């Protein structure tokens, strides 16, 4: 049987049509560039707050209740931070140092860090940003890339009325 020699293999160069592919590729590129948005990561502070929170277990006698009072001026800016009878001005760093002093370095089951509870009592019009700063200060701090945890149990006092102080 005679085998025919194909015309394509006779040294002719087969040229692909690149234009449609490049068209589609550029359309894809445009779509992704238009829909691209740099989103910063978000994280959560988990809080468990039943309506009438009964204390789980017996209260820890070795640790006084920690109530943080955040006061605000008329425009919602922070004016003072106080923990029980200790005032820290408007410095969250001082609050954190005090909490570290109370909690100590002990971590793990049964430690003060595990049982400690902080209650936040804030003025009605206080800007929420300050509350998150307070929660950040009491819940831990960064040491290099590691997060050292402090108080994990955080709750809110009942909401104050507009203009109520004390």
């Amino acid at each position, binding site marked *: 049987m005679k085998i025919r020699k194909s015309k394509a293999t006779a040294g002719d160069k087969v040229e692909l049509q690149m234009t449609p592919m490049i068209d589609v*590729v550029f359309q894809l590129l445009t779509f*992704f560039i238009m829909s691209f948005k740099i989103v910063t990561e*978000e*994280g959560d502070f988990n809080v468990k707050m039943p309506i009438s929170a009964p204390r789980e277990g017996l209260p820890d006698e070795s640790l006084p209740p920690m109530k943080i009072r955040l006061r605000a001026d008329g425009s919602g800016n922070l004016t003072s931070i106080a923990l029980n009878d200790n005032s820290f001005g408007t410095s969250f760093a001082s609050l954190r140092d005090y909490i570290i002093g109370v909690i100590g370095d002990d971590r793990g089951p049964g430690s003060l860090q595990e049982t400690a509870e902080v209650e936040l009592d804030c003025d009605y*019009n206080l*800007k929420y940003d300050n509350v*998150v700063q307070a*929660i950040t200060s009491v819940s831990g*701090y960064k040491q290099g890339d590691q997060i050292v945890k402090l108080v994990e149990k955080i709750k809110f006092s009942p909401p104050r009325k507009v203009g109520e102080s004390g």
Partner: protein
Amino acid sequence: MKIKSRDNSTAEGDMTPMIDMTFQLIAFLMVMVNFSQVDQNAAVQLPKSELARPADKPLEEPITLHILKSGEVILGGQTVYIEGLKALLGREAESLHAKGKSEQAATIIIRAHKDCPTGKVQEVIKACQETRFDRFALRAQEEL
């Protein structure tokens, strides 16, 4: 004078490096693109916190509440004042019951604007508590 005959062959540029680059760009953008706008709202500027880290695993039954600077609450695309929030939360509770779950299984994600009055956030939390939700996640933006 002798006139040279014009060469009919067309000059072709090498397309390969351009196509390589374009595909690499597309691959990069495809990986980085984030379409999930469900739990985000451009009107809410979150407070920043150095301890805010994304959760290791997705929350079970999350319900996201966006609290605007004015104190209005957005839930599932509906904007309501705190007085109208309980009705919407009631609907969320019903859908949980239909799945055989209780309100305690859900986590309320609170995305409040950084300048929103704290009292408004507390009122939202109270409304949630009154509809028997008790697990909350206060969302903050990671501070770089």
